[in-house]
C-alpha cells in the first residue's frame, strides 16, 4: 500500500475541500439573492476528488474540465478574484466576462479549457498531453468528466488515441450516479466505468472518490505513471452531487433514501472530524483555516462587484487574433 500521507498533505487537501465548499455556498447564496445570473452546476459533495488530485499536480500541469468544474479549477489554484469577477461577468474576470462559469480559463494556473459540451474535453486533454510530449515540458494533463460522459463518442475516441500514443494524461470520471436526471443504469450498459479502460488497454480503477486517502493514492499513481512515460489511466471516482444537476433542479428523480444516505456520508465533516481524531489539527485550527477562506471569498466577491462590465468593443475582440473593424 501507498505510504501514509503527511499531515501537511492532509491539511492541504482539507483546505481545498473547505475552499470548494464555502465557495459553492457563496455562489449559491449570491444566485439566490439575484446578484449572480448564470447557469450553475454545483459540485457540493464532490469536493474530495479535485482536492486529492491537485495536491499531486504541479502548478503548471494542465487541467481540462467541464461545466461542473469550478471546484476542479479552484483546487488547481485558480485565483478567487478572477473567478468571481468572471462569474459576475466583469472585465477583470478570467475571460473578461465573455466566457462565464462554463468556460473558465486561466493558463497561469494550468486551467486550460472548461467545456460545456459533454465529453469534448477528453480529446482536447489528449491534445494538450500531445503538446507536452513534443515540448518535453514534463507536464501532466488531468481531465474531469462525469459518468454520463462515458457514453459519448468523444470519450471513446479520446481514450483510444491517448493510449495508442501513450500520452501523459489522466482521465478522471466523477461517477455521481446521475447524468442530468438520468440514472447511471439507464444510460450506461456496463457495471463500472473503470472496466471500460480495458477497451483501451490502459489501467482502469474504481475508487471511493469521497475518501481522501484512497483518492489521493489512486490519483498519485496515475499522475506518476503519466509523468514517467507510462501513459494514460482511467479513474472512476465514486461520489454524489448534493444539489442536483443545476440550480433549480429539485432532484425529484433521486430516491429520497439515496440522497439522505449520500448527505449523511458528506465527506467534508467526516474528514474534518478524522483530521482531529488523528491529531492533525484542532477544531480551533480548522475553524481558523475556514475563517481565512471565508475572508478570501468575501474579498473576491467584493472585488468582483466593484469591477466594470466589459465594453461593447469586446464583441470585436478575440474573435480573431486581431480586432474586427
Amino acid at each position: 500500500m501507498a505510504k501514509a500521507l503527511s499531515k501537511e498533505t492532509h491539511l492541504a487537501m482539507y483546505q481545498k475541500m473547505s475552499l470548494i465548499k464555502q465557495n459553492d455556498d457563496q455562489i449559491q447564496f449570491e444566485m439566490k439573492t439575484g446578484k449572480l445570473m448564470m447557469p450553475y452546476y454545483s459540485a457540493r459533495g464532490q469536493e474530495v476528488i479535485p482536492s486529492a488530485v491537485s495536491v499531486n499536480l504541479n502548478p503548471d500541469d494542465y487541467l481540462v474540465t467541464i461545466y461542473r468544474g469550478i471546484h476542479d479549477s479552484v483546487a488547481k489554484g485558480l485565483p478567487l478574484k478572477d473567478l468571481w469577477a468572471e462569474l459576475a461577468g466583469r472585465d477583470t474576470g478570467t475571460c473578461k466576462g465573455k466566457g462565464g462559469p462554463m468556460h473558465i480559463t486561466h493558463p497561469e494556473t494550468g486551467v486550460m479549457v472548461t467545456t460545456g459540451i459533454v465529453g469534448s474535453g477528453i480529446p482536447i486533454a489528449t491534445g494538450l498531453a500531445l503538446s507536452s510530449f513534443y515540448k518535453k515540458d514534463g507536464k501532466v494533463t488531468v481531465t474531469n468528466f462525469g459518468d454520463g460522459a462515458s457514453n459519448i463518442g468523444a470519450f471513446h475516441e479520446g481514450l483510444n488515441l491517448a493510449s495508442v500514443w501513450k500520452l501523459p494524461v489522466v482521465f478522471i470520471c466523477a461517477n455521481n450516479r446521475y447524468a442530468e436526471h438520468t440514472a447511471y443504469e439507464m444510460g450506461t450498459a456496463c457495471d463500472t466505468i473503470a472496466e471500460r479502460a480495458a477497451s483501451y488497454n490502459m489501467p482502469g480503477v474504481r475508487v471511493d472518490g469521497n475518501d481522501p486517502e484512497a483518492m489521493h493514492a489512486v490519483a498519485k499513481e496515475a499522475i506518476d505513471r503519466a509523468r514517467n512515460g507510462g501513459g494514460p489511466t482511467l479513474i472512476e471516482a465514486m461520489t454524489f452531487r448534493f444539489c442536483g444537476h443545476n440550480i433549480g433542479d429539485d432532484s425529484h428523480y433521486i430516491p429520497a433514501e439515496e440522497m439522505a444516505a449520500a448527505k449523511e456520508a458528506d465527506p467534508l465533516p467526516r474528514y474534518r472530524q478524522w483530521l482531529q481524531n488523528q491529531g492533525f489539527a484542532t477544531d480551533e485550527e480548522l475553524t481558523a483555516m475556514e475563517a481565512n477562506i471565508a475572508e478570501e471569498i468575501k474579498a473576491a466577491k467584493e472585488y468582483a462587484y466593484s469591477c466594470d462590465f466589459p465594453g461593447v468593443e469586446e464583441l470585436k475582440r478575440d474573435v480573431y487574433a486581431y480586432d474586427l473593424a
Partner: protein
Amino acid sequence: MTAKMTMLEAINLGIKDAMAADESVILFGEDVADEQGGGVVKATAGLSTAFGERVRSTPISEQGFVGAGVGAAIGGMRPVVEVMMANFLAVCMDQIVNHAAKIRFMSGGQTAVPMTIRTMSGAGFQTGGQHTDWTEAWFAHTPGMKVVMPSNPADAYGLIRGCIEDDDPCLFQESMPLYWVPGEAPVQGNVIRLGEANIVKEGTDVTLITYGRGVADSMAVAQKMAADGVNAEVIDLRTISPLDNDTILNSVAKTRRAVVVHEAVRSFGVGAEISSRIHEQLFSDLKAPVQRVASSDCPTPFCKPLEDAFLYSQAEIEHAIKATLD
C-alpha cells in the same frame, strides 16, 4: 376571448396529439421521459406516462440516438428526437447531413427518413458560447433537410405536427425566450404544411421577413412605426427551408422594400439567401437594397451587457427600415 397557451404547452400538445393519431410516432432524447422530469424544460412532460415505452430517455450519445432515429425512420417509424440544445447538433451532424438528408436521394427514393429533430436555442439567458447558437443556415444549405422555426404557440403546435407528418427529415428549432410567452391556443388537429410562410401583418411600405423570435420584435417595431405613418408588412417564414419564395416575392413586389431579421449571426446566414433571392427576382422593382438585421459576427458572450449588445435590437430593425425608406 380566446384561450391562451405557452409555446412549451403547445409543443407538448402537438407531440401528444401526433402520438395519439399515429402509432408510429416515437420520441426520444436525453431526460425526455417523466421519470427524468419530462425534458429539461418539460416540453415532453406527461408523454411517457401517456405513451409508455414509445417515449425513451437516452444515454448522452447524440450520434447514437439521432442515428437510431434515422434507422427507426427507415424501418417505418416517425421518430421525434430531441437534441437538447442547438450546439449539440454539432456532435451528430454526420447522422443528419450525410444520412437523414441524403438517404432518400441516394437510395433513388426507396427509403426515407421522416424524422423530426427538436432542438432549442436563444440568447438572453447568459448561457454563453456553447449553449447559444443558431444552426438553421447549416441545415438549410443541406438539400434533403427541412428547417422550421415557430414564432408563437399556435404555430408551434401546427408546425411540430407538420414536421411529424412530413415524409422528410425536419429540424424544428425552438426559441427559448418564446417558451413561456403565452399566446393564442392552437386549434387541436390543425396541422400546418411546411413551406408556407404566414403574413402576420399586411402593409404597403416595406416587408419585414423574419422567423422565430424575430416575429414579435418585428411586429413591435412595425406597430411603433405605424404611428409615424410607415405601414410595414410582416412575414413569418415559419419554414426556412424550403423557403416560400412566392409569399416573399409577392410581398416585396408590392412594398418594394425589404428587411430580413434573424437572431443568428449575420455573415453567411439565412438573411443572405433571402436578400439574394429578392435582388435577383425584383431588382428593378426595389426602391432600396434589402437590409439585414442579425446578431454580431462573434460567439455568444456570457455577461449581460455583451449578450444584449450581441443580439440584434428593435432599434436596429427600426434603423434598417428607415434605411430602406430614405
